[in-house]
């Protein structure tokens, strides 16, 4: 679509578009409107399904956590035994919610950054349908007793192949989108997204083939399992999370990213070192020492991408922290970015052998996992959804109060969970390492903290219900039409009101 404009300069680069002084041409706006129009269906479909799995995954989590407090709770039906509900929770939130909302967000970011309307939109609908059918098969399969008990790969074989097919389709779409992008600068977010959708199908296919379809001896399954498990986090969830922070922080505060060089270092060091991290899950296990040492070293090297990214975000934000008061998106995203730094540094410390010796088999690891996947990834995704959906449905969020409640319930909830599980894990681990203390004492130490964890889970679930309510309301165009984005408070900087929020 082309529209004649009064002043028609050369196409702006993204950096131009990010500069506060850049004035949009009408053509820019029309282009963006067209992109959003073609993306509306697929992206909303992905986000909507993801929210459904988030709610279901939260329910499964609550059931599992209450079971650790009251072992007899819902114990007499095999479908709801702890050992099935727990992996059903993990897979529902990791693949149903996390990966899926990531796909929705990445689709939108990629199309916006490539500055072209969607080609082959049908591929996206097909992908969403197949993917969700696969997740459904997988979750029901786990509850029915077909789960594999290989962590992060619990989906039975018949479901894994469907999930893979759905994911492969959307990955192909990403490559096509990137290939036919408008010429000009490629933004850092695009590297992360393209890489994530290149790596993940390879990872998922290899791990499933090597462990289930053409199984290798069990000893090799351990390394393959954690090569997969850690890379799913490091080379899929993390890149999508960082792609979003790199896009959203500059957009909301209206200034470019602090340093292009730092973002290059951050990206390639992540690609190189994260991929080697997985074996730190096997410290002390029956595997060659070099294998584990390689991962311990790589875990230390992770300080480079993490600190580079943190510095880059920090100096982008400097002078604009006031915006956290009014921007819903920025609040969630900056909370997530801070958690990314903390959980990554914590992850490195957990690869130190003497730390790992204590924390390895305890709830401490579970606390760490929630800080990373929830405190960082999920919070960033919430922020992204708050940014993207109004642009797709041409309506603003109906209630700032709902957003506020969501933020505090989720934010305090995850920190409370992190603290209670970490303390539980330290007590448990120190007890386990002292052979004079009986095993059951290590269990008893954790009991009060596990109750606290259930409480924190209730808070987070309440946050999710509020989030889902907001989403349903905005889809139905609830409330009166607002002239401006829904903000949490009135910003005092007048310039802000003019900027895209």
């Amino acid at each position, binding site marked *: 679509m082309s529209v004649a404009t009064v002043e028609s300069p050369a196409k702006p680069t993204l950096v131009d578009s990010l500069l506060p002084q850049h004035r949009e041409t009408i053509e820019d706006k029309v282009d963006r409107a067209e992109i959003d129009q073609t993306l509306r269906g697929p992206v909303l479909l992905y986000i909507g399904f993801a929210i459904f799995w988030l709610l279901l995954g939260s329910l499964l989590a609550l059931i599992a956590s209450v079971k650790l407090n009251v072992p007899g709770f819902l114990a007499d039906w095999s479908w709801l035994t702890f050992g099935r509900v727990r992996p059903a929770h993990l897979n529902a939130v990791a693949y149903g919610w996390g990966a899926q909302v990531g796909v929705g967000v990445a689709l939108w970011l990629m199309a916006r950054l490539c500055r072209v309307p969607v080609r082959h939109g049908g591929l996206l609908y097909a992908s969403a349908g197949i993917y969700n059918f696969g997740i459904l098969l997988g979750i029901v399969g786990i509850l029915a007793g077909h789960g594999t008990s290989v962590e992060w790969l619990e989906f039975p074989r018949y479901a894994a192949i469907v999930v893979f097919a759905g994911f492969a389709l959307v990955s192909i779409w990403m490559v096509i989108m990137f290939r036919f992008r408008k010429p000009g600068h490629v933004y850092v977010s695009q*590297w992360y997204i393209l890489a994530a959708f*290149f790596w993940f199908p390879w990872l998922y296919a290899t791990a499933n083939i090597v462990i289930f379809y053409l199984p290798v001896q069990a*000893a090799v399954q351990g390394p393959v399992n954690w090569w997969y498990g850690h890379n799913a986090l490091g080379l899929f969830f993390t890149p999508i999370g960082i792609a979003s922070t790199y896009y959203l922080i500059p957009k909301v505060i209206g200034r470019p990213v602090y340093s292009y060089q730092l973002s290059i270092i951050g990206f390639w060091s992540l690609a190189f070192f994260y991929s080697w991290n997985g074996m730190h899950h096997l410290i002390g296990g029956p595997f060659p020492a070099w294998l584990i040492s390689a991962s311990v070293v790589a875990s230390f090297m992770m300080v480079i991408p993490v600190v580079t990214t943190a510095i880059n975000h920090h100096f982008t934000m400097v002078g604009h922290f006031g915006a956290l008061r009014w921007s819903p998106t920025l609040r969630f995203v900056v909370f997530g970015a801070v958690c990314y730094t903390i959980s990554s540094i914590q992850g490195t410390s957990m690869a130190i052998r003497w730390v790992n010796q204590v924390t390895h088999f305890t709830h401490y690891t579970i606390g760490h996992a929630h800080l990373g996947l929830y405190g960082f990834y999920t919070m960033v995704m919430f922020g992204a959804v708050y940014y993207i959906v109004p642009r797709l449905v041409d309506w603003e969020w109906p209630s700032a109060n709902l957003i506020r409640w969501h933020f505090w319930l989720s934010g305090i909830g995850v920190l409370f969970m992190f603290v209670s599980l970490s303390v539980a894990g330290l007590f448990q681990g120190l007890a386990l390492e002292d052979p004079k203390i009986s095993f059951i004492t290590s269990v008893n130490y954790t009991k009060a903290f596990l109750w606290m964890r259930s409480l924190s889970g209730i808070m987070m679930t309440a946050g999710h219900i509020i989030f889902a309510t907001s989403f349903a309301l905005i889809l139905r165009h609830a409330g009166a039409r607002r002239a401006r984005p829904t903000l949490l408070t009135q910003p005092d900087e007048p310039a802000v009101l003019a900027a895209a929020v």
Partner: protein
Amino acid sequence: MNRMPLLMTGFFLTFLTAWLGLVAVPYFQIGRYQPEVDEITKDQTPPPFSGQADQGSAIYAASGCIYCHSQQVRPTEAGADLARGWGARRTVARDYMRDRVAFFGTSRTGPDLSNIGARQPSVEWHYQHLYQPQVVAPGSIMPPYRFLFEKRKISGAPSSDAFKVLPPDAPEEGYEIVPSNEAKALVQYLIALKRSTYPLPESPDEPATP
């Protein structure tokens, strides 16, 4: 960083190094074990699982035992596992060559099970424990697995499979609790778990520190 072929090559190479290091090389190093065969008795170590125990490992997977129980014994310098009496030596890669899926586990909400068959060889104990864990392990937070058992009315002679359930959950007069085939297979698997009770050339017995 604006060219697609350059980016793709970079993605490919970084990922390839880790794939080679963490998947391909381990396959050649620890993925092709043979059992140790005694020249005189022809006994194999590690011994193969019986058919029933092998089925039991599938029940172990379906029930998600790994979410609380590990099956790996760390050496003395890496943890207190040996001092806790969880094995006579650390476990090594070859100990798992008979498993279809390896249940190394990442959680010890419950104790390590690498050698549970040596610590608790009694089938009856395992039935009791699966049926009502808190009776044999007070304070435990393990859930009961009663769906693996059947409560039957005794008609004529009691079933030879039935076991004596301790109070408080003993069935009323005239009824008996019988393990299902799944429960039987699972317990056969558990009592077959004696991973590091025998020495292997690459892992001789270690004296446990008191």
